[in-house]
């Protein structure tokens, strides 16, 4: 039932830990109107490009605009779907391969809503939020990530 009305900071320095995700899940035990949670986690892949392997992604962002866009996405999602709550966290700085860089968490009384809402939120983030991933290779060279 909590729709935050002011943009809040979605960014976290470094990787998002599984303990943090567990705490976030546990906090919802008192919200007994919820019947379904859906969680998206983005994990950094060890892609091989021209024989070199990605060792991590360093994230930067146009923070003020990004937080404003996260807020717009949140508001639009609450108006489109019957959600009880929603949480978004994105990493800044270095996230190593195998670590989590994006955590999106939606909850609703009913499961149909969470499936639609979660995919909507993730696609909106990819399309509208000015965040940049620099793929750093094991030899310290890099390339700028392109979302597909």
């Amino acid at each position: 039932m909590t729709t935050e009305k002011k943009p809040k900071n979605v960014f976290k320095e470094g990787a998002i830990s599984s303990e943090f995700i567990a705490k976030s899940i546990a906090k919802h035990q008192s919200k007994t109107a919820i019947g379904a949670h859906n969680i998206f986690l983005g994990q950094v892949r060890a892609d091989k490009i021209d024989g070199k392997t990605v060792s991590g992604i360093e994230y930067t962002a146009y923070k003020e605009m990004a937080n404003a866009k996260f807020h717009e996405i949140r508001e639009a999602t609450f108006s489109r779907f019957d959600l009880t709550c929603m949480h978004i966290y994105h990493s800044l700085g270095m996230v190593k391969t195998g670590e989590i860089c994006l955590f999106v968490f939606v909850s609703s009384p009913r499961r149909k809503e969470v499936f639609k809402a979660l995919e909507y939120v993730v696609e909106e983030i990819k399309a509208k939020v000015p965040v940049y991933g620099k793929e750093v290779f094991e030899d310290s060279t890099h390339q700028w990530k392109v979302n597909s």
Partner: protein
Amino acid sequence: MQLQIKYFGLLAEITNCDQETLEFSKSQVSDLLKELYIKYPLLKQKDFKVAQNHEIVSNNSNITNPEIALLPPFSGG
């Protein structure tokens, strides 16, 4: 007007800075881009959008805010 121009991702590598202050006497985004292309010819080959007031704006928009950001394609998540 004094503009603060912010560069992100790949573009900050081309300009070699994250942000800079420029004196700007014309009105439109396209005028600013012409000046930036002279200063940083490599910018011209790059795909990016311009944001003002945290919104993407078109090239024929008037510049009304002292903070302008040049944004290459997003790659969050």
